[in-house]
C-alpha cells in the first residue's frame, strides 16, 4: 500500500512554545486516519503545515512519495490536499455555487461559466450521494449542509487527501451519522481522510488508524481495532479521561428561579421562543439542549434582562423581577457565564484584577460611597478567583489575551461563582477548552450546586448536559418539546428531539 502522506522530523516553534517537536507520521492511501490530542497538543499546527498555511522550521513532507514544499494553501490544493476547517470558511452572502468555485479561475474578467460548473458539481454530489442545491445562499443552509458544501468544495478541486478539523464539533448525532456514511463512501472511492478530533468514541468508530499527539509530540500510531478508549485517553493526557460522573440529586425546596409563560419575538418578527414554563430549585442544575438558533440564547438573555420579552413572568427566588434592569437583576443575585468569553465575558486588554469587577461594578462590593472603584478589593478578589479556580497566570495584572482559552474561561466561571449568586446561567461553560480546565469547571459547578446554587446550563456538548444536569429540557424552534431525566437520556435520544424527529 502506498503512503499518501509521509511526514518526517517536522518541527515548528512559536515564540516561547514548541508547537511541533520532531514529528514522524505516515498515512496510508485510502484510509481514514484520525489524529487525536488535547487542545494545544499541536494537531492544528501540524495540519496547517500540511496545508501550506504555516511553514515548518525543519523536516520534510512527502505526498505520494514526492517531496513537496508549500508556501501557501494554493500549493497544497494543487497537490491534492484539501482541508475542511472547524469554523466553516463560507461567506453568508455568496451562493453555494459561488462558494464552491471561488478561486478556481484566475481573477480575470472573463464571464464565469456557471452552467458548466453547476453540471460538474452535480456530478460530484451524485457520485458521493451528498445532495446540494447550488443556487441557495449560504445563510439559508443548516450546519450539516454547510459542512457538505465545504467537503464538496474540496473534492471539486480534485482533492485526494481530505483533512477534517473537528468535523463533528458542530453537528448533532444524526448529522454525525450522515457525515460518517459520507466519509465511508469517500474512502471507498479512494480518498484519504485525515480526521482530527478529541472525541474518542467517534474516532474509534470511523478511523482505521489513530495517531495520538501530546505536548507537540507524536506519541504513537495505533490500529483502531486493537485499542480501547481508555488506552487512547491515557496516551492523550497521561491520565484517565474525565467524564462528568452522575451524582445524587438533592434539590432544595426553595425555588431559585421561576419562569411563567415566557414569549418573545425577534426583531424580524420571528418567534424567538413561546410558552416557556419552568423553575429551578436551589441546589439544582437544569440543562437546556437544543441545536443552536432554536431560542436558547434568547431565553438566557431574556432571563438576564437583555432580550425584551413580550409576555410572561419571572421570579428570582420570591421576587418578581419583570421590571428590573439587567444591572438590578445582577445585584439581586443573578450571574451569567456568556457563551463567548472573549467578546462577552472579558475585556481582553484590561488586567484580570479589573476584569473581576465586571458585572458588579455598580454594587457596593466594588464601589465606594463616593463612586470610586475599590481597586484594592478587586485585586484581592481576583487573587481569590485565580487561586480557587487554578487560573494559570503570572499574576492578577496580566491581560486576558495573554492567557489560553481554558484559563480565560476558568477566570470567567470563577468570577461569576465567587460573586455568590443565587442563580447562575451558564451558557456553553466549557466550549473549546482543554480537558483539564473542563473537568475543573464541571467540579466547581457541581460543588456550587451542592452548596445551594441554582444553575441553568445551556450547552451544545450533550455529554456535558447529561453528566451535569439534574433535569434536561429540550428546546426546538422556541418551544420546550421534552423534559428528560438525565438517567434515561443518551446523546441519540436528545439529538432526535433537538432536530424535531421526535416530539
Amino acid at each position, binding site marked *: 500500500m502506498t503512503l499518501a502522506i509521509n511526514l518526517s522530523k517536522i518541527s515548528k516553534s512559536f515564540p516561547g512554545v514548541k508547537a511541533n517537536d520532531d514529528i514522524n507520521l505516515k498515512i496510508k492511501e485510502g484510509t481514514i486516519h484520525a489524529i487525536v490530542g488535547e487542545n494545544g497538543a499541536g494537531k492544528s499546527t501540524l495540519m496547517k503545515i500540511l*496545508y501550506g*498555511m*504555516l511553514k515548518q522550521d525543519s523536516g520534510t513532507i512527502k505526498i505520494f512519495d514526492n517531496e513537496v514544499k508549500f508556501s*501557501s*494553501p*494554493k500549493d497544497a*490544493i494543487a497537490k491534492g490536499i484539501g*482541508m475542511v*476547517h472547524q*469554523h466553516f*470558511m*463560507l*461567506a*453568508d*452572502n*455568496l451562493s453555494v455555487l*459561488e462558494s464552491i*468555485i*471561488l*478561486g*478556481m*479561475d*484566475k*481573477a*480575470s*474578467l*472573463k*464571464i*464565469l461559466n456557471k452552467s458548466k460548473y453547476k453540471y460538474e458539481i452535480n456530478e460530484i454530489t451524485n457520485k458521493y450521494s451528498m445532495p446540494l442545491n447550488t443556487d441557495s445562499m449560504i445563510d439559508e443552509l443548516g450546519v450539516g449542509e454547510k459542512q457538505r458544501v465545504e467537503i464538496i*468544495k474540496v473534492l471539486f478541486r480534485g482533492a485526494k487527501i481530505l483533512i477534517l478539523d473537528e468535523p463533528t464539533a458542530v453537528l448533532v448525532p444524526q448529522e454525525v451519522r450522515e457525515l460518517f456514511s459520507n466519509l465511508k463512501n469517500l474512502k471507498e472511492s479512494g480518498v484519504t481522510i485525515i480526521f482530527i478530533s478529541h472525541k474518542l468514541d467517534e474516532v474509534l468508530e470511523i478511523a482505521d488508524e489513530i495517531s495520538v499527539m501530546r505536548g507537540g509530540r507524536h506519541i504513537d500510531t495505533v490500529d483502531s481495532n486493537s485499542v480501547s478508549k481508555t488506552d487512547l485517553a491515557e496516551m492523550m493526557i497521561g491520565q484517565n479521561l474525565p467524564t462528568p460522573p452522575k451524582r445524587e440529586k438533592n434539590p432544595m425546596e426553595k425555588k431559585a428561579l421561576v419562569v411563567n409563560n415566557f414569549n418573545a419575538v425577534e426583531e424580524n*418578527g420571528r418567534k424567538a421562543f413561546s410558552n416557556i414554563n419552568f423553575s429551578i430549585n436551589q441546589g439544582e442544575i437544569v440543562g437546556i439542549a437544543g441545536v443552536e438558533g432554536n431560542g436558547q440564547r434568547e431565553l438566557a438573555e431574556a432571563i438576564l434582562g437583555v432580550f425584551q420579552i413580550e409576555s410572561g413572568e419571572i421570579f428570582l427566588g420570591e421576587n418578581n423581577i419583570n421590571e428590573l434592569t439587567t444591572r438590578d437583576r445582577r445585584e439581586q443575585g443573578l450571574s451569567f457565564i456568556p457563551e463567548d468569553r472573549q467578546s462577552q465575558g472579558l475585556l481582553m486588554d484590561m488586567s484580570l484584577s479589573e476584569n473581576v469587577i465586571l458585572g458588579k461594578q455598580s454594587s457596593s462590593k466594588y464601589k465606594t460611597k463616593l463612586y470610586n472603584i475599590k481597586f484594592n478589593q478587586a485585586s484581592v478578589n481576583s487573587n481569590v478567583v485565580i487561586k480557587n479556580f487554578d487560573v494559570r497566570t503570572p499574576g492578577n495584572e496580566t491581560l486576558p489575551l495573554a492567557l489560553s482559552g481554558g484559563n480565560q474561561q476558568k477566570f470567567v466561571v470563577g468570577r461569576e461563582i465567587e460573586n455568590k449568586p443565587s442563580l447562575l446561567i451558564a451558557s456553553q461553560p466549557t466550549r473549546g477548552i482543554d480537558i483539564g480546565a473542563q473537568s475543573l469547571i464541571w467540579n466547581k459547578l457541581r460543588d456550587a450546586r451542592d452548596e445551594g446554587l441554582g444553575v441553568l446550563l445551556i450547552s451544545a456538548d450533550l455529554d456535558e448536559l447529561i453528566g451535569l444536569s439534574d433535569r434536561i429540557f429540550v428546546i426546538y424552534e422556541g418551544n420546550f418539546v421534552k423534559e428528560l431525566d438525565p438517567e434515561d437520556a443518551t446523546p441519540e435520544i436528545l439529538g432526535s428531539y433537538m432536530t424535531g424527529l421526535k416530539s
Partner: protein
Amino acid sequence: MLKTLKKNYLIFLPIAFIAVIAQVDKYDQLTTSGTFGAAIRLAIPICLAGLGGMFSERSGVVNIGLEGMMIMGTWFGAWAAWMYGPWYGILAGIIGGAMFGLIHAVGTVTFQVDHIVSGVAINILAAGVARFLNVVAYADQPTQSATQSPRIDGEVGDFTLPYLSGGGETPSLFGYLQDLDLPFLSDFAGLLLGATSNLSYISIFALTLIPIAAWTLWSTPFGLQMRSVGELPTGSESLGVNVYLMKYIGVMISGGFAGLAGAYLVLESSGIYREGQTAGRGFIGLASMIFGNYKPLGIFMGSGLFGYADALQLRSDDAVHGLLVLISLILLIISIKQIIEKKYLSASISIMLCLGFLIWFLNSETVPSEFVYFTPHITTLIVLSSASQKLRMPKKVGQPYRKGELN
C-alpha cells in the same frame, strides 16, 4: 438586469407621482426635459462616487476618503484638460483619484491603519495637495490664483438620439409629444427626451459604467474574488485568492471612480477647477451607496434622487414647492411598507414626517429661498433614512486583515 428591475418595481412609483403632481400648472417644471437632463448631469458624479465606494467596500475597505479622491479628480482633470484636451482630463482625473486610492490602500491594507482615520487623512491631504499643485502648476499664467484654474477650452461633444429626440437634423418625436401638453404622455416624453438628448459623451461613458460595474462584480471570477474578500478574507486566502491584491485593486478602482466623478464635475458643469467644487458629493455618494445596498442599480437610484432634487432647486422655486408633496407621498409609501413589515416605530416616524410635509405644503405658496438651496440634501437625507431596508453590508468591511491569521 430586467430581473432586478422587476424586483424593485417600487422605484417607479415616485416617477408616477411626479407625473401626477406635474399636472398642476405651477409645478410643470417637475417633468420638463430640461429638469430631467439636468438631473442626470447632477446625478452622475454622485453615482460614480457611489460606485467607487461600492468597489472599495465590497473588498472590505471603508472608503470615507472618496471626497478627497474626488478633489484629486477635479484638479488633475482640470489640469490635463487645460494642457492637452478634455479626454486627457478624464484620464488624468481617473489616475489622480486612483493614486489617492493607492495611498488609502497602502495605509489600510498594508499598514492596518484604521480605515476611517486613513480616509479622513486622505480628505485633508487632498485639499492641501490640490491647492499646492494649483499654485505651482499655474504660476506663470496671467489668471494665476491659488483656488482656481484657467478656463478649459474644448468640448467632448454630445449626443442626441436621432428621430426620437431630434439628434442631427432629424425630427424629434419626444419633443413633439412634450409640446402637445397632453397629461402624462407629455410628462413621460419629457423624461425620455431629457434622458436622451444633449448627453455628453462623458455622461454616456459614465452611465455605461453602471452595468459594467455590475457585470464585473457579479459575473466574472475577478468580481467573485473581490466580493469574497470583503466577506471572508481568511477563507478566500485559503482558496488561493490574493486578498491583499484584491483589496488594493478594489480601493484603486474606487479612487478611479471618484476621480472620474471629479473630472466630470470640472468638464461637464463648470469648465474650470475651483476649490471646494466637490461640495461633499463624495459623502453623498457614500450615502447613496448605503441606500443602494452596495448594488449598482440601487446606487443609481439613490444618486438620481439627489440629482433630481438638485436640478429642481436650480430651475424653479415653484417646483421645489411641489417637491414637498412628493416627499410626503414617498414617506407615505415607505410607512405603508413598514407597517406591512410590522416595524411600527419607524412607520409612525415616517407618517409623522409625511404629515409634517403635507401640512407645510398646504399652508404655503412657496418655499423660503434659504431652504431651496439645501432641498436636495434634506430630501435625500429624509428619504434615505426612512427607507431603512434590509441592508446587507459586506461582513468584514472595515476590519483589518493580516495574512496567515485564522479567524
